[in-house]
């Protein structure tokens, strides 16, 4: 149980008491509330605590001692009524003031308390005892107050009485008291002037306007949500279209690659290309080591100084596509750009492969230029793909040993095409001429120039 008394009520009681020349007593008016606090701690999900809060609003001093009881301590109900009148319902306790005595309920106080509890019908009537102690030379006077709850067990009788804002207010904030002001004058003034601050429901006007602003903001947010949802749906649809198209392209390319392979095989059976065969494995081995994997967070490296033409990109694509090796190893090709790309020339099948081979042959750098991870987004912006290619370049050196890992790490929804250069023939000069392998990277130009 907790109790609080407003500062002015407390000082009023003290004033009445201290000015009396004998013991003093009176009644405490107020109300009792039940408060439930729910607390969440690490050990429990929630624990609800029910406490009673006694609030003392006002007091009603008795004019003299023995005004409502007789020598034996028996209460006279009529006298009690004439003292309390219509305030009887709001009595929650009574108080007594005596100087230079112990902080303990006396014999008569206990008897009276029992009777008051019954008569007033308040089961938890409280008793506030004031005790005034002066030093011998009257230099220091101490006012002590204890709030008792005598109807409970003997060990739990004292309640702490809090007086809001009594203390060091420089360190704490000035709190608005929870004890309401029951004075009539106060309510009158508030009524008169309240209309400027409060609307007809008793809510402060400012609060209402703020709430309106808040509602408006919420509406706007809802609208934006709708728009976002729509654009997301559109995007999703486009994504699906793009995927479908890609699949078709991949299918078509595989078919053409297979046809050419068959064609080549029939050609190779006639001609004997020993030196190429010798170099093939040597070429093959570094090529096979080329692995690329898509970096999980696509970087945006600086665009290469000589962005290749779309034709080059396509030719590189096709050359890699023409091989029938499964897309297990690394080479990630730039994708044809659906939107915003300069053109869509038909892909030359072998240009890329030879370019690859050349690139490898001439430079000690085993990194090959065209094999770049395609990390483009659905928009198909060309700059992105170029950047991605550069990114792919940077990753090449690290990825040589990571052949197997590449498959797993490939989170891109776009197909990664294998470097089919391993299976491609080294052969024709025409392809070499076509191939422009190195244009895609900072190093690429040099190589390209070297090769050509």
């Amino acid at each position, binding site marked *: 149980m907790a109790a609080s008394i407003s500062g002015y009520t407390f000082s009023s009681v003290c004033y009445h008491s*201290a*000015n009396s*020349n*004998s*013991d003093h007593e009176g009644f405490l008016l107020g109300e009792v509330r039940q408060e439930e606090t729910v607390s969440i701690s690490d050990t429990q999900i929630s624990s609800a605590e029910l406490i009673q809060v006694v609030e003392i609003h006002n007091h009603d001093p008795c004019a003299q*001692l*023995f005004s409502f009881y007789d*020598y*034996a*301590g*028996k209460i006279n109900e009529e006298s009690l009524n004439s003292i309390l009148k219509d305030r009887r319902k709001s009595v929650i306790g009574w108080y007594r003031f*005596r*100087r*230079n*005595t*112990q902080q*303990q*309920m*006396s*014999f*008569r*106080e*206990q*008897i009276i308390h029992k009777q008051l509890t019954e008569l007033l019908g308040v089961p938890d009537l409280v008793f506030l005892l004031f005790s005034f102690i*002066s030093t011998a030379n*009257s230099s220091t*006077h101490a006012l002590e107050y204890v709030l008792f709850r005598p109807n409970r067990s*003997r060990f739990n009788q004292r309640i702490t009485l809090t007086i809001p804002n009594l203390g060091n207010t420089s360190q704490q904030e000035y709190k608005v008291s929870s004890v309401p002001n029951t004075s009539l004058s106060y309510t009158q003034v508030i009524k008169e002037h309240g209309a400027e601050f409060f609307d007809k429901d008793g809510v402060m006007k400012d609060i209402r306007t703020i709430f309106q602003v808040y509602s408006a903001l919420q509406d706007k947010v809802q609208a934006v949500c709708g728009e976002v949802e729509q654009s997301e749906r559109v995007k999703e649809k486009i994504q699906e279209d793009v995927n479908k198209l890609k699949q078709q392209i991949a299918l078509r390319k595989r078919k053409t690659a297979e046809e050419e392979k068959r064609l080549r095989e029939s050609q190779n059976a006639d001609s004997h290309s020993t030196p190429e065969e010798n170099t093939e494995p040597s070429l093959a081995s570094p090529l096979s080591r080329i692995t690329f994997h898509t970096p999980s967070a696509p970087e945006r490296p600086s665009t290469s100084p000589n962005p290749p033409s779309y034709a080059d990109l396509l030719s590189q694509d096709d050359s890699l596509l023409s091989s029938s090796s499964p897309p297990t190893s690394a080479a990630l090709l730039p994708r044809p750009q659906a939107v915003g790309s300069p053109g869509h020339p038909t892909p030359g099948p072998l240009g890329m492969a030879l370019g690859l081979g050349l690139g490898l042959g001439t430079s000690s750098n085993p990194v090959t230029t065209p094999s770049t991870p395609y990390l483009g987004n659905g928009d198909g912006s060309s700059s992105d793909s170029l950047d991605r290619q550069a990114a792919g370049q940077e990753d090449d050196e690290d990825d040589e040993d990571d052949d197997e890992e590449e498959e797993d790490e490939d989170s891109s929804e776009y197909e990664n095409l294998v470097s089919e250069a391993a299976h491609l023939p080294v052969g024709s000069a025409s392809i070499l001429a076509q191939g422009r392998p190195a244009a895609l990277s900072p190093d690429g130009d040099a190589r390209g120039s070297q090769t050509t």
Partner: protein
Amino acid sequence: MSPEVALHRISPELRPLLCSVVRNGRVGLDSTNCLRVTDLKTGCTSLTPGPCCDRFKLHIPYAGETLKWDIIFNARYPELPPDFIFGEDVEFLPEPSELPHLVQWDAGNPECLLQLVKELIQQYHHYQYQRLRESSRLLFEYDSLLEDPNYGRNMEIYAGRKNSWTGEFSARFLLKLPVDFSDIPVYLLKDTALDPGEDVALLSVSFEDAEATQVFPKLYLSPSIEHALGGSSALHIPAFPSGGCLIDYVPQVCQLLTNKVQYVIQGYHKRREYIAAFLSHFGTGMVEYDAEGFTKLTLLLMWKDFCFLVHVDLPLYFPRDQPTLTFQSVYHFTNSGQLYSQVQKSYPYSPRWDGNEMAKRAKYAWVTAWKVFAFCMAKVNSCCKYLKDQSDY
């Protein structure tokens, strides 16, 4: 705080009430300790002049404990009855209807407060009895004593502080023993520095536990009685028998005390008789005797021209204890300047003789003793003479 100081400081309207309490206040069995007043404070503002104290602490002896009750008046309204705070007995709440002097408080009657305090003590006794009910054994003790009219009406109990840690229950019984001290000769009672007050013997029995396994009895006598019986060491009461009851033990102690008192009274009379007898036998030789307590007797006797003094000291427990005879020469001094004397304890004596018999036998017995004494005296005489002759030379 002495009563005078208290009376001086209290508000004048309340003075008569306090006066009767501190001067005549005897409450309870232990009336040798009267009521004490301390912590006199005022309920008026500090600017009020003059003696205006109206609240104080009253110390009341009860069952071996001292109750400290706060009594609260209001100096500005002296006609109003007081309020009480019963100290540590927070559960003691007497029924006001049982306190007639509270219900009909009359501030004009100086005895009112004292009577009210007595009624409160009665209620307190009831309250302690209720507390005693927690131990059936001790309750039985109480009830059995209550039935006996000798003890029942003069009993105070204090059902003690239950030790909240161990749950131990203790109680103290204070009983006034119905022993008649009126026949004790007055001279014995006179010799005390304090106002003797009422002669009373109180038996305090402390039970340290509810099962009566640790029982400590103690006998308290008023100072005059204690002196009359020969000091505090004279009377040893028997220990409480384990498994015994108060109803058996208390009469035992009572009897013991009564016997002792009887003995003392008898002793007095016997001594008187003895001295009377000697007076009649040796009347002419009587030098002096104790006519109040009959403890001493001095005779001047002569045998064959040899005079000597005989001092007879009669002990307290005469005739059980033998009187001491001291023969003293009237002629000779010892080296230290005292009269030469010889103490005689072993002479035929029997406590069963009456005074006359003793006087008669004394005559004969003493002759023999005196003869020895005279012979010694003669020897001493001749030695002195010889020495004197020697010195003449």
